[in-house]
Structure formats: structure tokens, C-alpha cells
């Protein structure tokens, strides 16, 4: 080898090595997560988990938990001082959050022909899923309670909400999703780089965990196999809610009774599904739509999902998995 060629080769090797090292450095830096603050605790009677990211540790988890607690003070029917409890006692309350929630849910109740109905409170109380008095109510009890269920009697005029005497509003089907909306609004105003928050399994994700802008990965619980997860959804930003027959249920005489009640019958939904996960750009809607889709079944859900530009992952009781709309879902092998 000539001297000149040796020098050229050496320069080439050094340059290549430098480029390689710099590439690794920049790729790793882009993929390195921002500083994370995480939290697990209890709010709204359920588990709240947070992972918040920013250039410096955000220190916003406790504040976020307080925002969720504040929402609970408005929408819980079990808190005597809440506007919803007042509505259930007196038939009237004045609160912008409750009124907006009622307005958003009305079209979904209409689309499900009343299967999804926020005035289902009396029927839910009879079954008491997840409560101390969980039981199969008598048919006569259900028939009596059903007389108080009618979403068309629920009215929101400005900030004022009214129901008929004896009706009971239950925002349980949308409360966690609504909390996700609150969390996103507040955290985005704080200016942090990104975060993913779960309120009882309903999830909001926004921003990113790193400079590379990697999408969030939301796993879905397997409805029938405790030893496995169903799969993962990749999303840049949005809300994810799942409704399943496995979360709150009991079995009696070989039959499974679960907490997703059809407001027309007062009994658990009779569809071919055991889990529906909805992805959309609004937390309240993702929560409401997952319940509504479970009640409607896969085929009848599609028009409703299309209306809200939402996507879904359906799992049928026979184990088959299907998707609808724009969702980047990968099923795990189980």
C-alpha cells in the first residue's frame, strides 16, 4: 500500500467512526425520554396513573390529582354537595359541566335508541355492581326502576339541568372520560412536553415522551385471559376507553351478569361482544361511545363511530378481534 493511500484510508476510517458516534449520540438523544414524573393513586373511586414528561421533572401529578378530585365534587351522585346529587334530590341543578355533559350525551342516547341513558341511576343502584350489595334484582324491581329511566326528560338549558321527579342521573358511564378531558386541558396549559394519564382505565395521551415524537403505546387488557394483554394501540394523541364484561361482574346459575346495563331492559347488554375499545379526540365521547358500542354490537356501532370520526377495537365472545376506523392496533399472540 502506498503512503498516500494509507493516509486516505486512515482519514476515511476516522471520519466514518466520527459520523457513526455522532449519529448514535443524536439518535439516542432524540429517543431519550424527557424527565418523567409518575404517580399512582386513588381518585373518583378508582385508580389514577400518570406519566408526565418535560425537560425538567414536571411536578404536576399532585395538582392533576386535585383537578380530578375537583371534578368528582361536581359529577359524583354519592357526594351530597355535588350538583348531580342536588339534581337527583330536587330535579334541578345549575352547573356548566353537568349541562355540557348532558348535551354531549343526548345524541348518543338517541343513536342507541335509549340503550345508553344517563338517567339509569335507579337501575344501576339495584344491581350495585362492585358495591356491597351486588345482586340479581327481581324482575319486578327492575320494571319499577325502569319507569324512572328516560333520557328525553333530561334537559339542559344554558347551565341549568332538569329531570323529572324521581329520575336519577348517573354519570358513571362518562365520568372517567370527562376527567381525561379535564386533565388534558389543564396539563396542556401548563406547557409540559407530553403525558399519558389513566383514570380508571380510560386514557388520555398528548404531546410526546421525547424529541423524536414517538407515539404512545396503549395496551388493552385481554377480556378473557388474565395472563395476557390483547394488544397495543399506537397513537400520537387522543383518548382511549374500553368497555368490557370482565371488569365488574358476578356469576349466578352459570350466567354472567356485568355492569354494562341496557337502559331499555334494565339487564346487562346482550351483544356478541366482550370488549370494545374506542379511540377518539374527546375523553367524554370515547367513554360514552365505548359503552354505546358495547350495547349496540359491532355492526350497529359503525355508523355511530363514523359520526364522531372515532375508531374501535372489537373483541367478540368467540375470541375474534376486529377493528374499525383509523386505529393502529397490533394484537399480541395469546
Amino acid at each position, binding site marked *: 500500500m502506498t503512503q498516500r493511500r494509507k493516509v486516505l484510508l486512515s482519514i476515511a476510517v476516522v471520519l*466514518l467512526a466520527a459520523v457513526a458516534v455522532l449519529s448514535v449520540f443524536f439518535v439516542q438523544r432524540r429517543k431519550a425520554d424527557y424527565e418523567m414524573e409518575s404517580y399512582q393513586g386513588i381518585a373518583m373511586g378508582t385508580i389514577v396513573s400518570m406519566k408526565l414528561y418535560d425537560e425538567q421533572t414536571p411536578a404536576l401529578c399532585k395538582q392533576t390529582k386535585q383537578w380530578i378530585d375537583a371534578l368528582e365534587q361536581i359529577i359524583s351522585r354519592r357526594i351530597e354537595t355535588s350538583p348531580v346529587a342536588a339534581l337527583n334530590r330536587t330535579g334541578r341543578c345549575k352547573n356548566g359541566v353537568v349541562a355540557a355533559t348532558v348535551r354531549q350525551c343526548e345524541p348518543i342516547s338517541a343513536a342507541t335508541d335509549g340503550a345508553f341513558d344517563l338517567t339509569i341511576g335507579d337501575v344501576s343502584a339495584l344491581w350495585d355492581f362492585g358495591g356491597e350489595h351486588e345482586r340479581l334484582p327481581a324482575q319486578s324491581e327492575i320494571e319499577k326502576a325502569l319507569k324512572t329511566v328516560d333520557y328525553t326528560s333530561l334537559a339542559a338549558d344554558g347551565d341549568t339541568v332538569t329531570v323529572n321527579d324521581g329520575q336519577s342521573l348517573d354519570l358513571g358511564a362518562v365520568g372517567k372520560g370527562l376527567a381525561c378531558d379535564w386533565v388534558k386541558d389543564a396539563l396542556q396549559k401548563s406547557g409540559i412536553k407530553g403525558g399519558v394519564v389513566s383514570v380508571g382505565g380510560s386514557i388520555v395521551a398528548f404531546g410526546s415522551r421525547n424529541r423524536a415524537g414517538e407515539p404512545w403505546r396503549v395496551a388493552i387488557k385481554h377480556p378473557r385471559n388474565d395472563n395476557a394483554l390483547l394488544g397495543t394501540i399506537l397513537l400520537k394523541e387522543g383518548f382511549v376507553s374500553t368497555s368490557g364484561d370482565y371488569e365488574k361482574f358476578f356469576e349466578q346459575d352459570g350466567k354472567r351478569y356485568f355492569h354494562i346495563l341496557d337502559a331499555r331492559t334494565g339487564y346487562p347488554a346482550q351483544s356478541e361482544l366482550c370488549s370494545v375499545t374506542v379511540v377518539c379526540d374527546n375523553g367524554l365521547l370515547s367513554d360514552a361511545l365505548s359503552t354505546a358500542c358495547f350495547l349496540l354490537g359491532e355492526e350497529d356501532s359503525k355508523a355511530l363511530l363514523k359520526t364522531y370520526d372515532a375508531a374501535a377495537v372489537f373483541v367478540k365472545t368467540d375470541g375474534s378481534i376486529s377493528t374499525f376506523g383509523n386505529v393502529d392496533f397490533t394484537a399480541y399472540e395469546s
Partner: protein
Amino acid sequence: MKADRRMFRFGDAIVYAVLCALCVLLFLLPFLQKQNAPLLAEIIVDGEVSETIDLSNDEMPVVRTVRGCEISFSREGVRVSAADCPDQLCVKTGTIRFPGESIACVPNRVVVVLRRQTGTRDPYDMVAY
């Protein structure tokens, strides 16, 4: 003279190959290191972590009683085996096995959550249920 005109000799190719292999290794190293990070169970009381238990440790406790919750640990996961709460939802949750999964006993304000070691990345950020 003929040999000198060749751009690459066998020895040069080896140098480049080793360099490329090193670069690939540099890229993969962080991922390889994080594959089998131990699973940790965090016991959280009133929103504060009270204890963290390494489920890969042979000397981990089998059972811990926190407030009214009897929490059982194994290499496979964690469950609340008994509780004095009226709804028993924590007991009904069964065993949790994956990072991000959690059990809550709302009346006792106790949460158990599984996670990987700090600095490692799970295959997902959150679990929807």
C-alpha cells in the same frame, strides 16, 4: 503495481466490517440492556410509595399486610389475597402480572402497581381496561 490500484484489500474490509459491527452494537446496546429488567411491585398508601418489592428477589416477602389489605407476592405477580373492605373489589381483581397493571383498595386507600426498574422502558405506556 496491480495490487496497489485496488481500492480495498482484505485487511481493509475487515477494519470496515468491525467498525460497522461496533456501530450496530452501539445502537442496540441500550435496548439489549433493558430487555429483562426486574419487575417491581410498588405499594402506595394515600398516594405515597410506602414500599417497593423486587419480584425477582428470592428473599422478597410472601405476604405484606398494609392497612386492611393482605398482599401476596410471587415471581409471577401480585394479588390482594384478603381485605377487610366491604366491596372486596381488590380481591376480585386477582393477580396482576404486567408492568402498568394495578390493584386498588379504595376504602383502604391502598394501591399496588407493577413497574419495571427506573430507566427501563416498558413495551407500552399505559393499560386500558
